[in-house]
């Protein structure tokens, strides 16, 4: 993937917790990213299929399309798109998420500075 500058990078964040969405959006916009947030996997998939994003940041345990489902579909349809998974659930969910090989896995609660490092890292990966 070619270099993408911070200000042109578009991040799609999916989480069914509106408060988390709001916090992550505010923080990543301060880091000068263009951020879109949606509360469900279904909304995210529809946006991915109609839009153009540089990073997907997704919760795992969600209604309708889970993060696990979203990662699998994204890997098939958008193979170059970096995926960062995040969840606060236990071992079962963690193992299932790892099986789907996201680029990074963040365990909630996580430090926001860690998130910005991870986002930066996936955008500048060769």
């Amino acid at each position, binding site marked *: 993937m070619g270099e993408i500058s911070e200000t042109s990078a578009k991040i799609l964040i999916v989480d069914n917790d509106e408060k988390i969405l709001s916090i992550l959006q505010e923080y990543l916009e301060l880091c000068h990213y263009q951020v879109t947030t949606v509360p469900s996997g279904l909304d995210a*998939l529809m946006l991915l299929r109609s839009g153009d994003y540089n990073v997907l940041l997704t919760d795992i345990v969600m209604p*309708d399309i889970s993060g696990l*489902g979203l990662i699998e579909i994204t890997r098939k349809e958008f193979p170059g798109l970096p995926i960062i998974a995040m969840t606060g659930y236990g071992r079962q969910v963690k193992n299932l998420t790892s099986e789907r090989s996201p680029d990074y896995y963040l365990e909630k609660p996580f430090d926001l500075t860690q998130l910005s490092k991870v986002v930066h890292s996936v955008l500048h990966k060769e």
Partner: protein
Amino acid sequence: MNICDQILAGKSPSILKVKELIRQVANSDLNVIICGESGVGKELVAQALHLCSNRKGKPFVKVNCAAIPGELLESELFGYERGAFTGADRTKVGKFELAHSGTIFLDEIGDMPLSLQSKMLQVLQDFQFSRLGAKTDVRVNCWVLAATNQDLEQSVREGLFREDLYYRLNIIRIFIPPLRERPEDIDVLIDYFAGRFAEKIERTLFEFTDGTRDFFHQYSWPGNVRELKNTVERLMILGDWRTVKVELMARETKQFGSHELTTQPPPPVPDDYDVVTVQKKKFPPLKEVKKKAVREAEGKLISEVLTETDWNRKRAAKLLQISYKALLYKIKELNLRRED
């Protein structure tokens, strides 16, 4: 009209969402669990998924896990070799093999015995299994759809359903709300079933007037869409609205606990009787009241303990005598927040 619209009638936001979900995931091959009360149309959603997918010309095999005794369910699903047990005088192919290259629909999956759930998990992980009495494994390629009217999360907490299997099935979750929560679908469903049935019987003795439709909107439909369909068809055959209306009223009153009608037949209802005044007061189902009371009590206790421990969740979990993970789940479910 596309397949979804042909199979699933309705215009409520929740049904439109179900149709959109079907369209978006139909070719994903990801495990799907369809949830909802009895009679909402879970099997129809499964059929719609299959018909909207690339597997549409291939087998669609349904298994009702509640209808088959637990000890027979394994052989039904996975088949057996000749001589595997007394009475196995020939090899039998199971439903998973019959569904190869197509779709298998496991209805009432919450009733699957715990002992069989581990084999089910293996199939979902490795796409292979062994028939009873076989020495080698069989590989299958089929899309797995499941359905339940139970609260599987609760079943997991009670140790009745495997947690790992639960998460493997919940890759895509389609929830169909009960009919009473989407009254805007009632007229659409009346017209849909009346139209189809009229073609089938080539006549109709009944016209759905505004008065009839009003009653349909007032009624709570405990049997959901299946009950509405049966009622429409019954009306079209009998042509007798009075009889059917009284039966529905009796069914609803019995469900909400009026003891008068359990001992006597319902009184005849005159044509000009205002149906709405018969149901002066609507009572919520007892199950919902109980659920709400439990939620409130849990929320209050957990909040108190979290405040007491200064939101040290590990300590709080110990005091509440639940696992740390269960506490995290409760905090999220009850939307508990720390007040600064």
